């Protein structure tokens, strides 16, 4: 099997986030990027599947700060190939990201009945997990998000997956191959890779770089304004005798124009 995993770097919210002067983006001076947590699970799931069924894992991501560390870490975990897509990729969002990925796949990979495409089911800047759906649409493949378990049936060459719905409901699906899966949680938590292994892989492997030009993308989404969540009104406790409280209430209602 050929496992293709799309990864994304997202702002690390452990660090303080500040809005840049343009009011539309995050201040990169304060920003540290980390691999999207669900994507980390997607890598783990791909490697677990590879360990069970054999095959090859390719991890692909758009260039970003600290991306190389994430890619080398994936290689150290057992990925076979890491690809970094470069180009002028500032301020693009899920639909355009999916377009770039689709373009990459059409030019570089054969998508056959031995290919499974995985990614995280959501990210802090793609909370609804749209990317996989845009990508599946462009590739004309079935897609399942919020997947929490995947097993391969070799006799039928298909997958049994578990998908979570809201309200604690889960559904089991038989899924054909090829398809696109948005992974919520891998079978095991992402494994720890000792630094020595990552350093060793840095010496022996390379990250393939491919430039995909931004022009020709059809995305029309642009951020208009970015702002910190506003503090809403706080509860106010009224104290005193019932009469005093009633009087205060009437006053507040009058000021607010309720009565």
């Amino acid at each position, binding site marked *: 099997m050929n496992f293709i995993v799309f990864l994304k770097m997202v702002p*690390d919210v*452990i*660090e*303080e986030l500040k809005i840049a002067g343009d009011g539309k983006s995050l201040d990169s001076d304060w920003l540290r990027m*980390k691999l999207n947590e669900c994507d980390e699970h997607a890598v783990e799931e791909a490697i677990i599947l590879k360990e069970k069924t054999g095959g090859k894992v390719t991890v692909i991501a758009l260039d970003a700060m600290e991306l190389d560390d994430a890619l080398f870490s994936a290689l150290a975990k057992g990925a076979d190939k890491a690809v970094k897509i470069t180009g002028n990729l500032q301020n693009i969002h899920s639909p355009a990201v999916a377009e770039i990925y689709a373009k990459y796949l059409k030019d570089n990979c054969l998508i056959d009945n031995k290919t499974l495409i995985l990614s995280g089911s959501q990210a802090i800047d793609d909370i609804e997990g749209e990317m996989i759906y845009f990508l599946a649409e462009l590739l004309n493949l079935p897609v399942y998000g919020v997947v929490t378990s995947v097993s391969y049936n070799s006799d039928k060459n298909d997958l049994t997956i578990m998908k979570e719905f809201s309200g604690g409901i889960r559904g089991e699906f038989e899924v054909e191959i090829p398809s696109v899966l948005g992974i919520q949680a891998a079978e095991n*938590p992402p*494994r*720890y*890779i*000792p*630094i*020595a*292994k*990552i*350093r060793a892989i840095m010496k022996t492997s390379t990250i393939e770089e491919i430039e995909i030009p931004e022009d020709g993308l059809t995305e029309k989404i642009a951020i208009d304004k970015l702002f910190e969540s506003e503090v809403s009104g706080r509860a106010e406790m009224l104290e005193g005798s019932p009469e005093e409280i009633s009087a205060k209430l009437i006053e507040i209602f009058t000021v607010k124009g309720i009565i």
Partner: protein
Amino acid sequence: MDPVDIKIFGIPGIYYLWLFTVISLFFFLKRAVKIVGILKKAKPENRFGNFGRQAVNFLKFVLGQRRLFNEKSIGLPHFLFFWGFVFYAASFWWNLIKGLLPFVPIGYTDNIGIIGLALEVMGVLVIISIIIAVLRRLFFPPAHLQQTYDATIILSLIAILMITLVLGQSFKSVAEPSSWSPVGKFISASFSGMSGSSAISLFKGMWWIHIITVLFFLAYIPYSKHMHLLASPFNVFFRDNLKPADLSIKGAGDDISSGASKWQELTWKDLLNSFSCAECGRCDRVCPALNSGQELSPRVILHEIKEHLYETGFKTPTNGSHALIGELIPRDVLWQCTTCMSCMEQCPVLNEHVPVIVSMRRNLINRGEVEQTVQDVLKKLQRYGNSFGQSDRNRAKWTATLETKVKDARKEEVEYLWITGDYASFDSRIQNITQKTSMIFKKAGLDFGILYEAEKNSGNDIRRVGEEGLFEFLKDKNIQAIKKAKFKKIITTDPHTYSTLKNEYDLKVNGNGENVSIQHYTELIDELIKDKILIIRKKLGINATYHDPCYLGRYNGVYEPPRRILRAIGINLEEMPRNRSRSYCCGAGGGRIWMEDKVPIKERPSESRIREAVSLSNVKTFVVACPKDIVMFQDAAKTTGNEDKIKVKDISELVWDALESQ
């Protein structure tokens, strides 16, 4: 009268003596060569550090038998065994040489008056000791005594040797009475009527039984637990104890981060530990993991390695042989070690258990076989440089509410660079103690600063968990930051950080090869009080006990400064039975603070310690000098229901109380 001068079947005795000697040496050397061969196949390690220091160790711990005296009942007897053995062995070789090479102009030892006297008097004492030993084993065996077949054989052999010696002397007395042989003379009185010639034959018989037994003993030693007689003197010599429980493996060549899962991946010194072990069990008796009801036994770990060597190292390994990690030594057992170093502190032959355990942990880390909580912490450390998974920028948050800003040692020159460590910086239970320490420094007019977000976890626990690469990574970052700062001395809060900076960072003063001075805050406060820079007028007048943190006490020998501080602030110090080098670990070291207890714990080490403190009459305060101790012992005081009986206090809190109340 030459005892070798006999004829059996017409063949002179000397031929038999040569034959027996050759057979004995053949078996002895065969085994010795095999053992050396095994050590040569193990991982290399340079243990030729400093001949002078090694020689001193040899004098102290081999010839002086110093560690044996840690357990009083056996200290003197073993000292006598050892020297008795040396004496008899010397006498044996002397006699053997005379017997084999009759032309050598020396006499048999029993004919040299005073030596003969010593031989027979000591022989009687040994016979008495053996009777005591047998009675002890039969009727009052201590709980920890391992009653083995092996021990019975050895005791019997010694008994045969001494009885033949004493009887030999007695028979000789019949033929040739000597004033140097009072014991022989005494016993010979009961042989009245024996003819001179039959006495001489009997004497020769005894001599032969004696020498054949010794030759058998010689061949048997390397096959028995008395192997420690041969291996431990070397083991002591090659323990370079300049650095406590050194994990660096000098001269190992390739990367050590992958650790050991097979015996070939352990160093030769690691294996020599196992051959030196006499299985006395001192390590087990002080091990906080074992005594809290877990499975880890330092003795069994070394023993399993030895058995494994006999199983696979001496033969061609078969498919049926056991894996060292997982089968012989379960993974969980390796994770139970707190690296408190009590085992190493007690071991009479100076075995190094902690480095062996860490080597095997390295292998587990390398294979990702470590529990999830530890993996999570390591990920945090990899990314943020602290075990709390907080932003670097929060490291100095504890300074925010101080009246005066703490200097940034990266930006301005200070006398003291203060490395606080993770717990003192990030843990909300400890931050106020760190503030008090800084207020004490300020009151003393100390010129100090911190590294703010440039300080990273020093890597003490990380290294002991087995993540050598991450340790090196963080060490490099810290060294870079420290090199950029301008300062004269380093002070630390956490003993774990202290020990690692002091012993594992190799920080040199810029320009010359001198080591940077690194002090624990208790050492500094002690100096400040001694130099009358901190003047304490108010005495607290409370009763307290002090817990020696492993990495301050056992690892670095800092026992007195904290005690002097406590006395200076008017505390009546009552010692717990386990104090100083016998201090009982809180259970947090070696990464244990990040792990869950897997097996049902009989009594956590910290709980045992709190109970020990509570049992002292009048003690209401439990003083510590390590941030992790605050966390561990405050918990233990709660879980043992002693929260009202004893308060856990950092030494800084008490010093501050004494200063503030002036």
